[in-house]
């Protein structure tokens, strides 16, 4: 099945050439506006970031070319590495938990064995419509030991639940906010992939006497493999970019969330509080390359097994 119109046949060569020219012109006419804005807000900044990363700006002496100096500095920067290790840890725990829950819920909805399946689908996806700001503030209040639910539970039952916003727990608390925001999104991605598995496969499995669990492991999971790989890749990208939630919760937990808590927070504070634009651009590029390499590795691995 070709998605593209087959080229018209039996057209005289001269007319065909004229047509191709016209087609190219009209095609770029339609695609031009997108391409122009894309070049302005995607390609130009990437090029500019690279240029910045090779320079240094000094009060005295102005801008000078320093080659790989900024990159060498980044490689030896403990603040950068601590943040990277932190998001790495976040990634290793939060992504499997979130995608695991999403997968189980998607399988449950797809099994047809739930009462109120339509309600499940809507309700689980609802948090996706909630801005990260509201999600972080809301959860931040709920975490509060003063007037949040945690405080309420402590008062009501005489408990001494640990403060979720303390330095030792705040990463897990952020992980919970991110999980809450995106678990439904991933659920629906998996569900959408499950819905298009040919039903004849299930019929065949039923005739062969395969149990429900066998159907899940032998048919459903292999069928949605590519959806799972995509979800993993985008979750990895999202984790490395972790910014909004810790940035917003900083107001509630200023001592636990430092300005270099994640590489992105670090970049942000370098650029906007420290005015170190060149070094900030360098960190951003290093993180970008890092993310792209890991995402690519996951994709290769996901494809190979499939």
């Amino acid at each position, binding site marked *: 099945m070709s998605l593209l*119109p087959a080229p018209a046949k039996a057209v005289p060569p001269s007319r065909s050439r004229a047509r191709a020219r016209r087609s190219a012109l009209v095609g770029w006419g339609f695609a031009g506006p997108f391409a122009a804005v894309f070049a302005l807000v995607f390609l130009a900044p990437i090029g500019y970031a690279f240029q910045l990363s090779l320079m240094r700006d000094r009060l005295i002496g102005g801008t000078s070319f320093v080659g790989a100096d900024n990159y060498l500095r980044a490689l030896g920067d403990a603040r950068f590495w601590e943040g990277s290790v932190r998001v790495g840890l976040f990634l290793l725990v939060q992504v499997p938990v979130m995608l695991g829950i999403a997968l189980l819920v998607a399988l449950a909805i797809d099994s047809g064995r739930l009462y109120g399946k339509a309600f499940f689908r809507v309700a689980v996806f609802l948090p996706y419509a909630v801005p990260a700001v*509201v999600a972080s503030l809301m959860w931040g209040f709920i975490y509060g030991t003063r007037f949040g639910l945690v405080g309420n539970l402590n008062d009501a039952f005489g408990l001494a639940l640990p403060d979720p916003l303390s330095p030792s727990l705040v990463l897990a608390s952020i992980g919970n906010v991110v999980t809450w925001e995106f678990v439904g999104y991933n659920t629906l991605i998996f569900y959408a*992939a499950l819905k298009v598995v040919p039903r004849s496969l*299930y019929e065949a499995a039923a005739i062969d006497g395969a149990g429900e669990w066998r159907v899940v492991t032998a048919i459903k999971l292999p069928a949605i493999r590519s959806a799972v790989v995509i979800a993993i890749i985008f979750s990895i990208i999202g984790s490395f*970019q972790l910014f909004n939630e810790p940035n917003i919760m900083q*107001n509630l937990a200023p001592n636990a969330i430092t300005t270099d808590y994640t590489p992105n927070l670090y970049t942000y504070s370098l650029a906007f509080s420290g005015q170190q634009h060149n070094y900030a651009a360098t960190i951003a590029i290093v993180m970008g390359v890092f993310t792209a390499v890991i995402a690519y590795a996951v994709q290769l691995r996901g*494809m190979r097994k499939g």
Partner: protein
Amino acid sequence: MITDPTGPSSGTRERTVHSGADSNGAAAGSPGPPVTQPPHAAPRRRRRRAHTPLDPRPSIPLTLVTGLVLVYTLLPLAWLVINATKDQEDLLDSFGLWLGEDFQLWDNISRTLTYDDGAFVRWTLNTLLYVAAGAGGATLLAVLGGYALAVYEFPGRRAVFAVVIGAVAVPGTALAVPTFLMFSGMGLANTPWAVIIPSLVSPFGLYLMWVFTAQAVPSELLEAARIDGAGELRIFFRIALPLLVPGTVTVLLFSMVATWNNYFLPLIMIKDPDWYPLTLGLNAWSAQARTAGGEPVFDLIITGSLLTIAPIVVVFLLLQRYWQSGLAAGSVKE
């Protein structure tokens, strides 16, 4: 993986296109028997039928266990609604999941709207501007671009695909600092343009419209119109556009949620509170409690949060069926 629509046929793409058609067709939603039957009526009718693996009996234990996830997703929202009805005193004194002594919702709303010379109203109007211009423009560019890629052969078409898909993988925040510096150089920083222009590009929207156009607009139809002497613009507006409505609504919906919820971009670009969107405004109120001498306005933050999510949740529920096709086709997080 996301596949090149121009490439050889692959399983992934066929599924993608198929599912897009499913949810956009007349039978949008779930095929099969309606799932919202009242539970007490269902079993009696169903008992007479044999339950096969294709039509299994609903299970109470499974519903309860999966219901825990619903409790998880809905509980914080319930907390928000309940606490929007309380004044500061009740916030501190009453149990979080039950009403306080006074029902203050209307009072809270009017104070949220008037606090600080009506800043909240101003931020709402800003947000509407960013959504209308940003999401509207993004949808327009995506529809035009996707149509071009699906219908016309032109040099560089494959390169456009490769570059755009590659760009999706670039962390958005990596671009933020250089984009800000560029925009300051152009005198655009701290103006609405700095938020609107970057919002105009939706690689996901372009991809979705490409796949959707290839599927929904038959080339024979365009060919017939050309033979009748219709111009390319006329063909686009009169023939293609009506066929592209479902895909367009999907892209618009995703772009609207993305711009309405945008935080990072305006945080970097906008310094003047008069141009804040709602997300930045709420965060500013939250930061206020932390500064010395700042008035803690937790009640207003909670009510403001509720007011911020209310419109988007309504749009989201009304246009529900369009989500599915977008999710099926793209699986791109934004």
